[in-house]
C-alpha cells in the first residue's frame, strides 16, 4: 500500500507544458530517496484548471500545486513527501486576499462546480481499469443487466437527461425509439467528433475517464438490443484514441465487453472509427455516412438514425458527455439526478471556458447557474481587469450574449430564448478589445470551410454573408449591408438542410441584434470601436508622451518605427503591418490608435 499518491495532470494542455517530464522527474526523485514503495506517481486526466497548469495534486492531504515545472520535482519530494511540509510557493494564491489555498475545494474555481460527467477526471489513472472499478465502475452495468430493457429505459426517461451534444433531445426517449424498432442488428454510436473550435470537453472525458464511456455504451446496447458499438472519434485526438484503445482491451480482458457479459446472455463489443476533420460530421446522419466510408454529407430526416442508420440498421447516436452521465444515473438513481438542475434541464453541463477570462479551463456546473456566476465566480472574471463585452456559447452555431443577459440561467430553453444555444459546451468570453463584426466574420470563415456544399442556402448564402462582413471590416460597408445580412441570414436559417446551415447565421444575427452600434460605426463612420479591424486603424506616436526609450523600435517586427534615442519616434505607415506590438510594449501610453 502506498501512503501517498502524487497525481500529475496528463490532459492535453498540461502535457503541452511538460507534465510528462514532471512525472518522470518525480519518479526519479522518489527512487533516489528510496520512497518508491511509499509514494506512487499517477498520470490522471484533466483537472480542469488549465489556466494554472501543469497541476500536481497530492493525496491524501489534497494539496493542489499549480504551475509546476519539471525542476520543482525535487523540492516536492524532499519537502512534501519526505518532510511533510507543503511547498508554499507552488500553492494557488487567492486573487482577492492573496492568501495561499492548498485544497482545491476552497478555490473559487471549484466551489460552484458539481462533477458528474467529470467525476473521475483528475482523480483516477485512466489507463488502469482497477481504479475505475474502485470508484464503482461497471457496477451500473451489473445493475442494469438485472433489469429488463424497458425498466432501464424508464429510469433513463425519468432522469430527464438530455443530449449534451447541443440538440438537447431527451436521451431516454431516443433509446426507447431505437428499442422499439425491431431489426436483426442495431448499433450504438458514440459521437466523439468534437468539432466546435475552442471546446475540449469530450476529449477530456475520453482522456480522463474512457471506461465510463465504454460502460455507458454497453448499457445502451443492452437497453436497445444492439450487440455492436462504434466510437466515431477525431483522428486529431491521438491521446484520447490511445487511452480508449487501452481501456477497450482491459474491458475485454475482464469480460465487461465481448461475449456473455457478466455471465449473461448478452454480447456487446466496441470498435473505433476515425473522423478526418469535418465539423458537419457532428450531425448524426453525416456522421453515419462518414463511418460508412463516404463523404460526410447529411441527409434529410426522417428517416431518423433510430429507424435507418449505420448500414441501414437502427442506430442510436449519443455524444460523449451524454454517455458519461449514464452510469451515475443508474448508481445514484434518477431521483438524485433529476434533483439537480432546472425544471426542463436536469443534471450538469460541462463547459470549456476560454478566451479573455482569468480561469481558463474545463468546468462542470449545475444547470440553472447563471452566466454571471460562471464568468465571475468560477471563471474568476475578465483578464487584466478589462471590461466584459460578450460571451459566446454554442460555438459556430450559437450566439453572442451581452451584459444584459448575464443573469440568464444556463439551460437549454433559456439560452435559446435569448438567441444563443447550449451547444456542445464551448464558452468563449470576450472583452472590450474584441470587435463583434470580426468575430462574426471569423465564425463565418469557419462555416465556409466546413459547409459540405450539398444544399444551396448554406453553400452560397453563407459565402455571401461572409463577403458582406469582410467588406464591412475593410471599411467598405454601406448602410444597406446590415439589412442584407439580416434578410439573408434568416433565409439561410429557414431553408438549409441540416443543423449546420440552419444555425450558421446565428453569430451574425446575434451580434447585429446585441451590438448594432458597432456595425453602424464600421459602416457609417468607418471606425472600429474595439480597435481590431486593421483596415480601419492607424498606429501613431504621440510626440509629447514618447520618451524615446526605443522599446517600440526594437520590438517592431518590420522595422516600421524610426527615431533616435531620447527623441520622439515615428511610425512609417507604408511599412506598418498593424500588428500592435508597439502599443503593447510602450510603457508611456505614447502609441495612439486612431
Amino acid at each position, binding site marked *: 500500500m502506498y501512503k501517498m499518491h502524487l497525481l500529475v495532470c496528463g*490532459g*492535453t*494542455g498540461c502535457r*503541452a*507544458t511538460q507534465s510528462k517530464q514532471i512525472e518522470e522527474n518525480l519518479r526519479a526523485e522518489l527512487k533516489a530517496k528510496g520512497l518508491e514503495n511509499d509514494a506512487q506517481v499517477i498520470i490522471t486526466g484533466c483537472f480542469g484548471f*488549465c*489556466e494554472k*497548469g501543469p497541476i500536481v495534486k497530492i493525496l491524501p492531504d489534497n494539496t493542489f500545486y499549480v504551475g509546476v515545472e519539471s525542476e520543482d520535482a525535487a523540492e516536492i519530494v524532499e519537502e512534501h513527501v519526505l518532510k511533510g511540509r507543503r511547498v508554499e510557493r507552488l500553492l494557488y494564491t487567492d486573487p482577492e486576499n492573496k492568501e495561499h489555498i492548498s485544497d482545491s475545494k476552497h478555490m473559487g474555481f471549484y466551489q460552484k462546480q458539481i462533477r458528474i460527467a467529470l467525476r473521475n477526471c483528475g482523480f483516477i489513472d485512466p489507463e488502469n481499469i482497477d481504479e475505475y472499478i474502485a470508484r464503482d465502475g461497471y457496477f451500473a452495468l451489473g445493475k442494469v443487466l438485472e433489469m429488463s430493457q424497458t425498466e432501464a429505459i424508464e429510469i433513463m426517461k425519468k432522469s430527464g437527461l438530455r443530449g449534451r451534444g447541443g440538440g438537447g433531445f431527451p436521451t431516454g426517449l431516443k433509446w426507447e425509439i431505437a428499442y422499439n424498432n425491431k431489426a436483426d442488428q442495431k448499433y450504438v454510436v458514440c459521437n466523439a467528433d468534437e*468539432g*466546435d*473550435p*475552442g*471546446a*475540449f470537453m469530450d*476529449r*477530456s472525458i475520453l482522456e480522463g475517464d474512457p471506461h465510463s464511456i465504454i460502460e455507458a455504451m454497453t448499457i445502451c446496447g443492452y437497453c436497445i438490443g444492439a450487440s455492436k458499438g462504434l466510437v466515431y472519434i477525431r*483522428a*486529431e*485526438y491521438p491521446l484520447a484514441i490511445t487511452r480508449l484503445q487501452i481501456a477497450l482491451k482491459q474491458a475485454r480482458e475482464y469480460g465487461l465487453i465481448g461475449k456473455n457479459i457478466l455471465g449473461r446472455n448478452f454480447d456487446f463489443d466496441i470498435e473505433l*472509427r*476515425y*473522423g*478526418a*476533420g*469535418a*465539423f458537419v460530421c457532428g450531425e448524426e446522419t453525416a456522421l453515419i455516412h*462518414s463511418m*460508412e*466510408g*463516404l*463523404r*460526410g454529407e447529411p441527409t434529410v430526416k426522417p428517416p431518423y438514425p433510430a429507424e435507418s442508420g449505420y448500414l441501414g440498421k437502427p442506430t442510436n447516436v449519443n455524444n460523449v458527455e451524454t454517455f458519461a452521465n449514464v452510469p451515475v444515473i443508474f448508481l445514484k438513481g434518477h431521483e438524485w439526478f433529476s434533483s439537480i438542475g432546472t425544471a426542463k434541464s436536469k443534471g450538469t453541463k460541462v463547459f*470549456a471556458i*476560454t*478566451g*479573455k477570462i482569468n480561469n*481558463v*479551463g474545463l468546468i462542470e456546473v449545475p444547470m440553472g447557474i447563471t452566466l454571471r456566476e460562471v464568468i465571475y465566480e468560477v471563471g474568476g472574471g475578465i483578464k487584466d481587469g478589462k471590461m466584459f463585452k460578450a460571451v*459566446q456559447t454554442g*460555438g459556430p452555431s450559437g450566439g453572442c450574449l451581452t451584459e444584459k443577459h448575464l443573469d440568464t440561467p444556463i439551460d437549454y430553453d433559456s439560452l435559446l430564448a435569448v438567441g444563443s444555444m447550449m451547444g456542445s459546451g*464551448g464558452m*468563449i468570453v*470576450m472583452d472590450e478589445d*474584441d470587435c463583434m463584426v470580426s*468575430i462574426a466574420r*471569423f*465564425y463565418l470563415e*469557419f462555416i465556409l*470551410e466546413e459547409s*459540405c456544399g450539398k444544399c444551396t442556402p448554406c453553400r452560397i448564402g453563407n459565402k455571401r454573408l461572409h463577403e458582406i462582413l469582410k467588406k464591412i471590416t475593410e471599411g467598405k460597408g454601406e448602410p444597406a449591408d446590415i439589412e442584407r445580412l439580416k434578410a439573408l441570414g434568416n433565409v439561410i436559417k429557414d431553408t438549409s438542410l441540416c443543423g449546420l446551415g440552419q444555425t450558421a447565421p446565428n453569430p451574425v444575427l446575434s451580434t447585429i441584434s446585441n451590438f448594432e452600434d458597432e456595425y453602424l460605426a464600421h459602416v457609417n463612420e468607418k471606425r472600429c470601436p474595439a480597435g481590431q479591424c486593421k483596415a480601419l486603424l492607424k498606429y501613431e506616436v504621440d510626440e509629447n508622451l514618447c520618451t524615446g526609450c526605443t522599446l517600440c523600435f*526594437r*520590438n517592431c*517586427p*518590420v*522595422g516600421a518605427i524610426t527615431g533616435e534615442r531620447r527623441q520622439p519616434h515615428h511610425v512609417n505607415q507604408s511599412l506598418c*503591418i498593424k*500588428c*500592435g*506590438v508597439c502599443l503593447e510594449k510602450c510603457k508611456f501610453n505614447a502609441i495612439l490608435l486612431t
Partner: protein
Amino acid sequence: MSKIKLANHTIQIVKDVCAEFENKEGELINILHQVQHKLGYLPAEVQEAIAKELKIPVVKVYGVVTFYSFFTMVPHGENPISICMGTACYVRGAEQILDEFKRELKVQVGESTSDGKFSINCLRCVGACGLAPVVTVGEKVYGRVAPNQVKEIIAEYSNKNVTDDV
C-alpha cells in the same frame, strides 16, 4: 489525370493497406488514414491505385479526400507549422501570429516553402486553450505565442544562421 508512374514499392504499400482492410469500400476512410500516415500525403496517382484495389471509381476516392481537412494532396514541409485558429486562440490574437508566419516564410496557408523545410496550416483547437494562442511545429506545442516570437520559432528549425537585424 497525370501520367506519373508510382514506384513499385509505393504501389505495394497501397496494396498492403487495402488488403489489410479486405479491400472493402466501407473502409475507405481508414485506408486513406493509413496510406497518408505511410506516404505523408495522397497525390492523384495514389488515389488511382486505391480506387483500383477497392474496385470503385477514382472520383469517389477523390471526393472523400477533398471533403475531409485531415487529408492532403500536397506533402507537408519537413517542419509542419500549425496555427490554432480555434475561437479561444482567435480572440487571443492567433490571426496576427498567422500573418507573421505567412510574412516571414513568404507562403500561404496550405503551402510549403520552396526548400521544403516549412509548411503552414491552420487547425481548429489543439485543446490547450489555457495556453492560447497556440502554435505547433511537428509534435512540439508553443503556448502564449506573441507576434515577435515567430522569428525565434522559425530560427529554431532553420539550419542556416538567421542574421539578426536589430
